[in-house]
């Protein structure tokens, strides 16, 4: 599949936003922190979620009709995501405002947790529900979206805390390391699983000719088509391998080293978040690039 920047930004930004909210509310539940952290924190989470939402519009051919996409929530995970994301943003906003006004926040925060987790499931299921994209068809897709989002959110929370509420930086760093390690393991498991995949579809099943050797001669168009643009990333193997290395290094090991440096200052922890976010972009790019769509069997040769 061709990685689309709009989708890479959407899934990584809202993942970090969800993770940041979960981190902040977690701190609140443990009785740590205060509105000096939670109000700007909620604003930061909203900024991440809003940026993701804006990015998603660039994926649409007809963004002015985006409101229609809430219609089929009974069958479509994409429709469910479209509903849950604004609902979650509204709750985060209300939670932040409640902190600002000194109103009770526990019920709002709990609703936020439910919606954040639901949003992870929706986002993951958009990919995991497609049976023939075998690389995505695994519970690991949802688990990794949730864990990677939470890890980056915790790193962001650590950076925010170092800036606004220093005593919380250390526990956030510890949590970011723990969840980041888990996320890294989950991602490694998905990578290992996907290298062992055998494609179910072959040219023999694609055109129904039972012969082991079938070669495409022509695909019916010489200048390419939607099918050749949308489903192939067209990057050389070396570039894909480089992104894979970037993901392996930047998603956890490098940010972990920065987090372990023992410097609980906002610039250092902010740098850790930026490094990890770059790793997440590489991770999401690779997530798309490694998925081989069976339709590609029909688009192997130009003429």
């Amino acid at each position, binding site marked *: *599949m061709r990685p689309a920047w709009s989708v890479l930004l959407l899934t990584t930004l809202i993942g970090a936003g969800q993770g940041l909210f979960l981190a902040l509310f977690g701190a609140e539940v443990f009785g740590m922190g205060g509105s000096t952290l939670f109000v700007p924190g909620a604003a930061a989470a909203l900024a991440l979620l809003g940026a993701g939402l804006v990015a998603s519009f660039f*994926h*649409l*051919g*007809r*963004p002015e*009709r*985006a409101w*229609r*996409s*809430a*219609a*089929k929530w009974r*069958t*479509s*995970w*994409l*429709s469910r995501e*479209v509903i849950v994301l604004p609902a979650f943003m509204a709750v985060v906003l209300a939670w932040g405002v409640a902190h600002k006004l000194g109103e009770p926040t526990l019920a709002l925060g709990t609703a936020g947790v439910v919606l954040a987790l639901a949003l992870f499931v929706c986002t993951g299921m*958009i990919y995991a*529900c*497609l*049976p*023939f*994209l075998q690389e995505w068809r695994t519970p690991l897709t949802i688990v990794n979206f949730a864990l990677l989002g939470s890890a980056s959110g915790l790193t962001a929370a650590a950076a925010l805390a170092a800036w606004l509420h220093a005593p919380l930086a250390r526990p956030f760093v510890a949590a970011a390391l723990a969840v980041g390690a888990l996320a890294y393991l989950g991602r490694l498991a998905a990578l290992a699983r996907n290298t062992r995949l055998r494609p*179910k*579809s072959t*040219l023999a*099943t*694609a*055109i*129904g*000719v039972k*012969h082991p*050797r*079938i*070669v*495409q*001669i*022509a*695909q*019916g*168009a*010489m*200048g*390419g*088509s*939607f*099918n050749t643009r*949308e*489903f192939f990333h067209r990057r050389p193997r070396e570039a894909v391998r480089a992104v894979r290395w970037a993901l392996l290094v930047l998603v956890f090991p490098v940010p972990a080293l920065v987090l372990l440096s023992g410097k609980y200052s906002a610039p250092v922890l902010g740098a850790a978040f930026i490094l990890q976010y770059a790793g997440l972009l590489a991770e999401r790019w690779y997530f798309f690039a490694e998925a081989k*769509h*069976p*339709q*590609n069997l*029909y*688009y192997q040769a130009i003429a």
Partner: protein
Amino acid sequence: MTTKQLALVIDLNVCVGCHACVTSCKGWNNDGAAGPLSDQNPYGADPTGTFFNRVQTFEVGEFPNTETVHFPKSCLHCEDPPCVPVCPTGASYKRAEDGIVLVDYDKCIGCKYCSWACPYGAREVDQEQKVMKKCTLCVDRIYDPKLPEAERKPACVLACPTSARLFGDIHDPASDASRAIREQGGYALMPEWGTHPANHYLPRRKTEKRLHPDELERHDNPLKVDGLLPRPAPDEPALDDVTSW
């Protein structure tokens, strides 16, 4: 299974890969009420455009024992279409009355998710209208009472010079399409995904003529002379080694 399911049955044994179905499809659907099937840079170096139907060519086997298979590919109007439930707006739908899978171009937001959910690559985004498009089985033709009944068929079916494309209700066991599927080994593409495509393909067949001795003589043998021709002696000249001067 009792409701109607319109579909194409494509005979790969007969298709010669002439692309008449492609051009007639483009011609009909480019002029339709739903707007043009746009092309980009059609006469330039890198032409591209939206098509409902494409003819692809495959080589089967290893040289010199190869076979060329021309393979027309369009939306298969699956009985369990994976593209429909994923559509967030309901723009993609399967008609209950005849099983045609359609896109409402006025509702489509162009998110391309349905094309990800189609294992066959049957859907293409129109670069100009920015919405998803796909074969409609010429839904604006097949029910048109202004057309003579024989022409109420998809444009590709009417255009095919070798009659490689049959059109009909595959749930009606008496239809030509059903009979062809039943009697000529009709099969579905990528059955492994459980999409149950309505369109079927008829396989390539070995075409060889078997001659039986009785075919060398006329059945009624009117003058009772078939088979009685005198044979030339081995040293005599003969026209064809059988008949004598």
